[in-house]
């Protein structure tokens, strides 16, 4: 069935709640309202208040409570209304969700899924366009996944809900309704930790995830017209990351561009570059190029297009890298 990403996530939540009654959904406005992006639409009507909780307005409360729920046998799929509001829940994520397994030497675990609508480019208000993967990837014990299409969204969410550890599920807001594609009716999982080759190519490796995969596809097409063959890798999972696929591709092309909308300094591209230079230095024909947000506060919507990487900037980076 053809569906857009918001529908794919919604369908997955229905299926997971039907097959496992320990799955519960909690967050601000996720019930009666169906979520501010309508991603949880209909769940309240079908499953009711005990399993679909319109929570008080408290991010720390939501995540802290979800940690307890998860540790004692429920499977909470909690929501941060916008990723930019996760900071006061960070405490519970890094100090508890990420640590409980280690602190109890495996006696406890926190199988919590936290859905975080992230990404910008939709002219939303301040704090509504963040891309905060760095602060989660940096801290061990939490998985971070990020779909770039409706198909990935459904399979990655199902895998996240099955996972025994805390999974942060990044939802690219600007892709919620950007396009539709075929999504299987039946349940399926996409393995966490495996990248997806969007396109084979020989001249340059382009690495992206989430909303930037969508934007990069256009740039890759433009580059092909310039005669540059790009191998496009969509990471899908940032923690754990599929390093093998990255090394394999870069060894083949010798050139690499990494795209993300998070800030440049200590953005995940920095880690990817470091890993490539550690292992593939002798294969490299050009410096690794990063196309990222700038090291500034994300501007208010009027001028946001100067902040987020766009097709033009990505294309320029591909060309410069290919012709270095």
């Amino acid at each position, binding site marked *: 069935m053809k569906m857009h990403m918001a529908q794919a996530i919604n369908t997955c939540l229905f299926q997971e709640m039907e097959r496992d009654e320990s799955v519960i959904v909690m967050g*601000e*406005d996720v*019930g*009666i*309202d*169906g979520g*501010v992006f309508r991603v949880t639409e209909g769940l309240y009507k079908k499953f009711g208040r005990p399993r679909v909780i*319109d*929570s*008080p*307005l*408290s*991010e*720390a*409360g939501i995540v802290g409570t979800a940690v307890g729920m998860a540790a004692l046998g429920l499977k909470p799929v909690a929501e941060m209304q916008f990723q*930019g*509001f996760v*900071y*006061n829940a960070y405490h519970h994520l890094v100090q508890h969700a990420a640590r409980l397994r280690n602190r109890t030497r495996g006696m406890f675990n926190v199988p919590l899924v936290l859905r975080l609508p992230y990404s910008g480019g939709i*002219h*939303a*208000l*301040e*704090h*509504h366009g963040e891309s905060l993967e760095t602060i989660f990837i940096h801290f061990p014990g939490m998985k971070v996944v990020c779909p770039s299409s409706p198909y990935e969204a459904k399979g990655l969410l199902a895998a996240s809900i099955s996972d025994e550890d805390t999974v942060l599920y990044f939802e690219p807001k600007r892709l919620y309704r950007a396009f539709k594609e075929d999504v299987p009716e039946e349940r399926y999982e996409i393995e966490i930790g495996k990248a997806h080759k969007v396109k084979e190519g020989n001249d340059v490796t382009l690495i992206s995830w989430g909303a930037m995969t969508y934007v990069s596809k256009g740039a890759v097409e433009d580059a092909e017209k310039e005669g540059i063959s790009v191998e496009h890798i969509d990471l899908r999972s940032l923690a754990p990351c599929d390093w093998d696929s990255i090394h394999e591709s870069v060894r083949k092309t010798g050139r690499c561009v990494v795209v993300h909308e998070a800030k*440049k300094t200590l953005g995940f591209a920095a880690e990817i570059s470091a890993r490539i230079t550690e292992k593939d230095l002798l294969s490299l024909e050009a410096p690794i190029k990063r196309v990222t947000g*700038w*090291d*500034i*506060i994300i*501007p*208010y*919507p*009027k*001028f*946001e297009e*100067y*902040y987020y990487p766009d097709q033009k900037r990505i294309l320029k980076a591909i060309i410069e890298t290919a012709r270095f």
Partner: protein
Amino acid sequence: MPVKRVFEGSVDYVQVMDKDGKVDKSLEPKIPNETLDRMYRLMVQQRTWDRKCLALQRTGRMYTYAPCEGQEAISVGASQAVSNNDWIFPTYRESFMYHIRGAPLYMMNLIWMGLEEGLKLDKKYRAFPLAIPIATQHPHAVGGAYALKLKGEKAATVVFGGDGSTSEGEFHDAMNFAGVLQTPTVFVISNNQYAISVPVKWQTASETIAQKALAYGFKGIQADGNDILTVYKVVKDAVDSAREGKVPVLIEFITYRMGAHTTADDPTKYRSDDEVEYWRERDPITRFQGYLKEKGIWNEDYEKEVQEEAKKLVEEAVQKAEDYKADPKDMFRYTFAHMTKDLEEQMKEAFE
């Protein structure tokens, strides 16, 4: 005696003028006619501006906007009850308050048109920049009040928030610090019944929000937030006593958000037309009109003049905001007091 009561508390509800215009003379604040006139004009201006912003958003001339129709009595009444030395800490739904404090109205348009320049507020307005994250202003106002106290200024801070904000830890941190540090802080909670879609009954199991103050060692009052006379009186009493070095106060105003949470919200999903109608009958502007008529201030000619004045003010603000030329490079220039070499280079790359 093995069991003895160690705490007792209560919360009063205050209403100066009821919905039908009956005024409790023992509570009626003595407000000069000149101030009453100003209050009415400001309420009409706020509503005119608010409706204009909605229209601008719908035609793509503004981004997401958080409307304030129905809550004018609180922002206008409170701002007239505080002195020029006090500091206010508004929420995003009270951006009009910056104009009341002296900032040109077009700046408020800039905020919602997606430009940081809208918050380029001169400190002389003594109004703290609004924030989008919920409840963060509460502890800031407590810290601000402590600063005023330590500097020996006879001034208080008045911090605004919604019912939803009382669920965040920061609200409780702030109340606790205010009680412990005895800061001159007045917490004004506009209980407009919903935090986006979530009703107050799912926000708190307390009967009132006001009673939360008792747990932190100070007084909580509940009052009619759709009667500007009540708002004026209750805030004035609270802020006067806070300024005199007495304890902080929490005021819960019962009100209603007539419109959507923001232009991205559809309130028909979570509330009934009947409910909206119930509150329409308690409209703060209409109620105040009745009072002003009794005072011999309001008549139809007056109304016409006030409406025209408001329309002109708003049109001028829209024009000025739409003519405003901002420099996108400013997104780099205010990261630090002095721009780093790295940022200079990034800025160059961003605008090449």
